[in-house]
């Protein structure tokens, strides 16, 4: 073909991270809403003279967060540690099982129902048993959190690994690709968007799992995570500290979600439609 192709110039580009007005507003508007809510809350508490043990104002909570920072940050670290380890285990366990399932329909058919049973049984109901069998409390918490988090990774990745276009399978067969090559060059990259979707859900669930397990462990997890701190503050009617702990948990969840969304964007924005922006 002597003719050099002279077609779309410039080539449609990739979505880039730009700081335009749209993005500024997108950040500024929710912030504004947050500030309005907080100010109204503070005003309501002061004007109505609501006692601190019923509803503390945000300033009071912030002050408590600052004064108890040493204890609370230590507990935060414990909870975050369990959450992240559980997420890691979910990625390895869920992803690994999905790859195993993709090897044979029969393996999938044999084991998938049990993965579903593990998922649909409420964690709160299993946690006490787990705490009895696993003596090491942190390990028990980790197991609970993993149990909640691994399923979305497993089911999404399994779906992704099975959603390969048949033409690609034919193509690989024509090139006499080996089994591992089909997995490595075709199935795994094809499943990546599905896996990342599952990971985003698993991130939030592993935090929930960690907190639920801690609540169940109660005083057995003496002096450990944030959920325990909230529980303890509840017994003492230390409402501001309960709110402070809650705020830290929410922020952790938001941070995890943001980081995983960022990772997803980083891996997909060059090729996947979900991350691509269309110009109209």
């Amino acid at each position, binding site marked *: 073909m002597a003719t050099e192709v002279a077609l779309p110039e410039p080539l449609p580009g990739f979505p880039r991270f730009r700081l335009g007005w749209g993005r500024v507003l997108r950040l500024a508007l929710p912030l504004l809403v947050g500030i309005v809510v907080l100010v109204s809350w503070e005003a309501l508490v002061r004007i109505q003279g609501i006692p601190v043990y019923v509803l503390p104002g945000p300033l009071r909570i912030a002050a408590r967060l600052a004064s108890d920072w040493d204890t609370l940050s230590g507990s935060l670290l414990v909870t975050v540690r369990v959450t992240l380890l559980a997420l890691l285990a979910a990625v390895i366990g869920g992803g690994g099982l999905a790859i195993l399932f993709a090897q044979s329909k029969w393996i999938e058919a044999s084991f998938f129902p049990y993965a579903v049973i593990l998922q649909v049984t409420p964690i709160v109901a299993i946690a006490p048993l787990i705490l009895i069998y696993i003596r090491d409390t942190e390990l028990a918490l980790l197991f609970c959190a993993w149990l909640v988090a691994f399923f979305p990774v497993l089911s999404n990745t399994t779906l992704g690994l099975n959603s390969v276009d048949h033409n*690609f399978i034919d193509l690989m067969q024509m*090139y006499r690709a080996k089994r591992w090559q089909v997995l490595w060059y075709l199935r795994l990259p*094809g499943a990546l968007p599905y896996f990342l979707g599952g990971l985003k859900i698993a991130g939030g669930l592993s935090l929930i799992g960690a907190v639920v397990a801690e609540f169940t462990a109660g005083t057995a997890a003496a002096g450990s995570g944030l959920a325990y701190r909230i529980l303890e503050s509840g017994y003492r009617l230390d409402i501001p500290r309960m709110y402070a702990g809650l705020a830290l948990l929410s922020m952790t969840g938001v941070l995890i979600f943001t980081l995983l969304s960022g990772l997803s964007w980083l891996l997909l924005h060059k090729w996947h439609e979900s991350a*691509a922006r269309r110009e109209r």
Partner: protein
Amino acid sequence: MRLSHVGKAFANGTLALRDLNLAVRPGEFISLLGPSGCGKSTALRLLAGLGSPTTGELAWAGDPTLSFVFQEPTLMPWRTVFGNTYLPLRLRGMGKAEARPRVMAALAGVGLAKFADAYPRQLSGGMKMRVSIARALVTNPALLLMDEPFAALDEITRGRLNDDLLTLYQRERLTIVFVTHSVFESVFLSNRIMVMAARPGRIVADIPVDAPYPRDREYRTSETYNRHCRLASEALHAAMAEAADGH
């Protein structure tokens, strides 16, 4: 390469092909021309070794390298144009450094050397198909199988790709089996047209197109071209009428 008395029945009982005989000689450009559902794609897939015939047999001379171009470009969206073209060599275990000159030559062959680092998402339909052809040619195949590769493209792009395919055919001395349902495309491209009829799929006419290459715009308006178009068209209509009578 030879198909003799090949039949293919699907699990649902459909007889896709019956007693198909086809010998492909080196350097030929064969078009399988027929209405939809006549089994021309099935025949091509059998040639490719994708699936095996129910009856009859396939015989290859030695163990030739085959390449297949699908109706869709079938490019991996996560690999660049270079990465997609490199894939067949990668699967054979060839390193990137060693493969680079061959990949770039294949891309230059389809006029896309400048776009090696682009992703498929950034390309037009015609460009994607060019990448698909480059990927098929990078292994220097003894036989190139094409399954209605340009059917989804607009008329203008299709015309250009037809021209460029003929240039490649001559320059690389390719052997091609090309499935199409366009009479004009088959007469323009090939030197042998096998007209197929449906239900069950079989070859009903073998029309040689003896016009010399290179073929250009002049050929498209020539008397030879017209005559062959009429021949192929009549054979196709006869095949379709026969199939209609059968029902």
